[in-house]
């Protein structure tokens, strides 16, 4: 058994990888190498890293357009992810999808989805299939609190509870749906209350301590795997950047951002690692290896070929 120190060091590396990867993506975006919309996960790493640490390889992951972290953690290479952002043929969706549409069948990454809320019933369907086939896999579905106000979300929640599906719904409440703060989206502040109306278990916690996230999600995963009972988790978090690269985020104050940054999951993990006796040297080594990986993936994406016109229709029908 790996001891907790090594586990945390591994999760720390994942969080740092996501952050450095996305910083590099932001830079490439400003250089025009990435186009369209780029939604960064920076600040929220504790959620995906902690939650996915509670999963097994056979489990399925479904998420929104803010999907780089989930793919990286599930095992999609940084190269395939960066190449997808660059719209290159070596990308995880052949460069046809871009930032919001990461897919990786080998790693049971059922995708990033651009239509808010539309993916929630899809995740429930994957859970249904798992139960039907009896293979013990759990589906985990991430979404923002913005999803909680659209019909597809409510329908999926109802179905999952009614059909007793092995699924964990994780609402990443980062306080804003684009420029709209939660209090102008929902009449209640506690999104997890949505579970009550369908008779579903719920949990609610902040994503600062990645190990706590893992443990709380593990309870829900166990409930799903062993009893086919769904859970709605409200994971409290915060995104440091604008909604996407084109959003200057003027609807928030710098004070608020600075306050939230004190709850940073990477900062917290660093402190916890030091407390467990991890040296500065060891942390520096992890950071250096992440930087090398990110540098390599940018170079790879840069040098990869663009898809040619023959790909336009290639995936339209079988």
């Amino acid at each position: 058994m790996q001891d907790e120190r090594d586990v945390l060091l591994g999760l720390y590396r994942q969080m740092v990888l996501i952050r450095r990867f996305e910083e590099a993506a932001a830079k490439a975006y400003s250089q025009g190498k990435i186009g369209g919309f780029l939604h960064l996960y920076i600040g929220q790493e504790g959620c995906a890293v902690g939650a996915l640490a509670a999963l097994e390889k056979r489990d399925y992951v479904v998420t929104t357009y803010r999907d780089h972290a989930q793919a990286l953690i599930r095992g999609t290479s940084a190269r395939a992810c960066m190449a997808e952002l660059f719209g290159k043929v070596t990308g995880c969706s052949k460069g046809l999808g871009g930032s919001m549409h990461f897919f990786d069948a080998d790693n049971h990454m059922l995708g990033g989805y651009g239509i808010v809320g539309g993916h929630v019933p899809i995740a429930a369907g994957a859970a249904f299939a798992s139960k039907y086939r009896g293979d013990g896999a759990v589906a985990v579905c991430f979404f923002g609190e913005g999803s909680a106000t659209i019909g597809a979300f409510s329908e999926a929640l109802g179905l999952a509870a009614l059909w007793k599906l092995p699924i964990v719904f994780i609402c990443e409440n980062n306080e804003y749906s684009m420029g709209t703060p939660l209090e102008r989206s929902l009449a209640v502040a506690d999104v997890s209350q949505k579970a009550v109306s369908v008779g579903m278990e719920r949990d609610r916690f902040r994503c600062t301590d990645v190990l706590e996230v893992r443990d709380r999600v593990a309870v829900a995963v166990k409930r799903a795997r062993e009893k086919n009972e769904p859970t709605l988790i409200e994971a409290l978090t915060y995104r440091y950047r604008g909604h996407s690269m084109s959003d200057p985020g003027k609807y928030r104050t710098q004070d608020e951002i600075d306050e939230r940054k004190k709850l940073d999951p990477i900062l917290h993990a660093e402190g916890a690692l030091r407390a467990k006796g991890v040296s500065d040297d060891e942390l520096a080594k992890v950071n250096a290896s992440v930087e090398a990986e990110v540098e390599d993936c940018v170079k790879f994406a840069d040098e990869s070929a663009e898809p040619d016109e023959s790909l336009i229709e290639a995936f339209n029908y079988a």
Partner: protein
Amino acid sequence: MTQMNMVKAINDALRVAMRQDSRVVVLGEDVGKVGGVFRVTEGLINEFGAERVFDTPLSEGGIIGTAVGMALYGLIPVPEIQFADFIFPAFDQIVSEVAKFRYRSGGEYTSKMVIRTPVGGGIRGGHYHSQSPEAYFIHTPGLKVVCPSNPYDAKGLLLASLRDPDPVLFFEPKRIYRAARADVPEGEDYTVPLSVAKVVRPGNQVTVIAWGAMLYEAIEASNKAAEAGIDCEVIDLRTIWPVDIDTIVNSVKKTGRVVVVHEAPKSCGFGAELVSLINEKAFDYLEAPPTRVTGWDTPFPYTLEMDYLPLAGRILPAIQSVAKY
């Protein structure tokens, strides 16, 4: 007159309408304080207050559904759908309720509203920030569909839409939101009539029909064709539906040759309907099979966007081939 882009001109139209008529309300995701993702509603909340310009949760079905109720009760709602690609959660409300209200209530009620939404490609937005879904709505009797190509028309068509007794889908071509500029009388009231197309380039040999952002590609291809001795007449539909078929037929009677350009996929796109109408009404005048230059019959790709869009480079060969048919 003031030089304005499309964003400013549409904003100005909303101001003019809201100053005149307290029934007009604007709703949608981030339309209030933020002023919309493209800033089309910027500042309206300051002039008209949060009772008339209000943010909604992320609930497209709810946005359009409640707008129906508002309309029945005498308001004139102007819901914004942030991108036309996100209109589908509201498709049921639009198709089942908005479009049919006048008919199924025997004219007792109408769900008159103007649904504004940015449309089309050109910003590398990929699958869900690029589509042109006009054909679904044209296929739904009871709706009008408008797509301006320049700031002057955008303002005049929006004011005309707001005064039209029927529900209008107002598609704003995002590729030219800021690129297209024109003199627009600021703060003044004027309308550009619905269902009146405009001949933007007179010619005798080939009729090229386009709207929205692709109009500029049609003009560019026509200018290039002129260098090769082919004289094109370019028509900007402005209102896609109900279409101004007379202007088209008059042109085809003269040219006998037609190229239709649109961004949406080819099959069952509006080009198919246009070609059928031309066949029905001007068959005897045709010298060549009407041709379509369109998006591909695939989802809208992230890369290959410039191959997908029917840009001048693809329109020109189509003009040449119908010209020499």
